[in-house]
């Protein structure tokens, strides 16, 4: 009988030697997987122009109707993105978004990408609507903030050669 008790306690003693598995979350953050879809980001080209051209394809692809885009015309004096139009309003309701990534797939300029941030909790529903200024990434080094003054005829196409226009 005694050996049976020991055999039963073998797992218990084995577990006593193992390290605890708990992730001490607010201090230690477990890195997300490569394909994880978190909070959205609106990207820019290297020269600082926004990639988003305000075509609303992301809003059309969104199954939860979480995205609202309003577009306006670019001019050479005030240029936000290459091509004719840019998104003057870009709002994502984080409480509606289901982080499926369809917007990412629909975007012709790869402007919207889903990032790593998952810490989205709000005390008010209105805080959950993220505007363009919250979604846009900061300008990289060497780039200029939008709106930019550009020479005419340089950024005629909304979708340039998909690389960075300079």
């Amino acid at each position, binding site marked *: 009988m005694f050996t049976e008790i020991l055999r039963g306690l073998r797992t218990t003693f084995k577990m006593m030697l193992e390290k605890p598995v708990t992730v001490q979350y607010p201090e230690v953050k477990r890195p997300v997987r490569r394909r994880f879809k978190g909070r959205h980001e609106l990207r820019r080209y290297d020269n600082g122009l926004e990639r988003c051209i305000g075509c609303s394809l992301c809003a059309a692809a969104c199954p939860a109707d979480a995205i609202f885009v309003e577009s306006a015309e670019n001019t050479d004096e005030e240029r936000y993105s290459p091509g004719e139009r840019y998104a003057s309003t870009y709002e994502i309701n*984080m409480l509606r978004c289901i982080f499926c990534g369809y917007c990412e797939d629909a975007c012709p300029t790869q402007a919207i990408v889903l990032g790593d941030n998952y810490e989205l909790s709000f005390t008010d529903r209105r805080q959950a609507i993220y505007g363009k200024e919250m979604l846009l990434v900061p300008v990289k080094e060497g780039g200029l903030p939008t709106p930019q003054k550009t020479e005419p005829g340089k950024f005629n196409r909304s979708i340039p050669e998909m690389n960075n226009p300079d």
Partner: protein
Amino acid sequence: MGIEQKLGNMGVVTMRLEDAVNWGRTNSMWPMLFGLACCAIEMMSAQASNYDMSRFGMELMRASPRQSDLMIVAGRVTRKMAPVLRRLYDQMPDPKWVISMGDCASCGGVFNNYAIVPGVDEVVPVDVYVAGCPPRPEALIHGIMTLHEKVRGEKIKDWS
């Protein structure tokens, strides 16, 4: 001011009642077991050993509303479930808080139909909304942290 200097040698610390009570409330907030859909899986995971909500004094999920302080509405609430939800909320003793976990509970999410309540804040007052479909266990814990912040800031005149 005066009392601490007089009693300093006796090991007495004074603090505001607000802070003491809010500290107590923050660190022993027992959630009610209220999983409705897929978010409940993540809620269970947050309770399990990998994320372990009992580090924050949420020792175990109470199955009874009378013993719980916090209701985590995890999942979509149907029209048929809404009266039950309200009734359970009414049975909880004061002070009580509600976390609306996930998109469906917060605003209906992808479900745009007659069967789903568009947001549980139509039925109960919600303190914290957690976004995600479903939120990761970390995101739920972040929501609980947000709630703790809110509870820490409560004033004595708001207690009813």
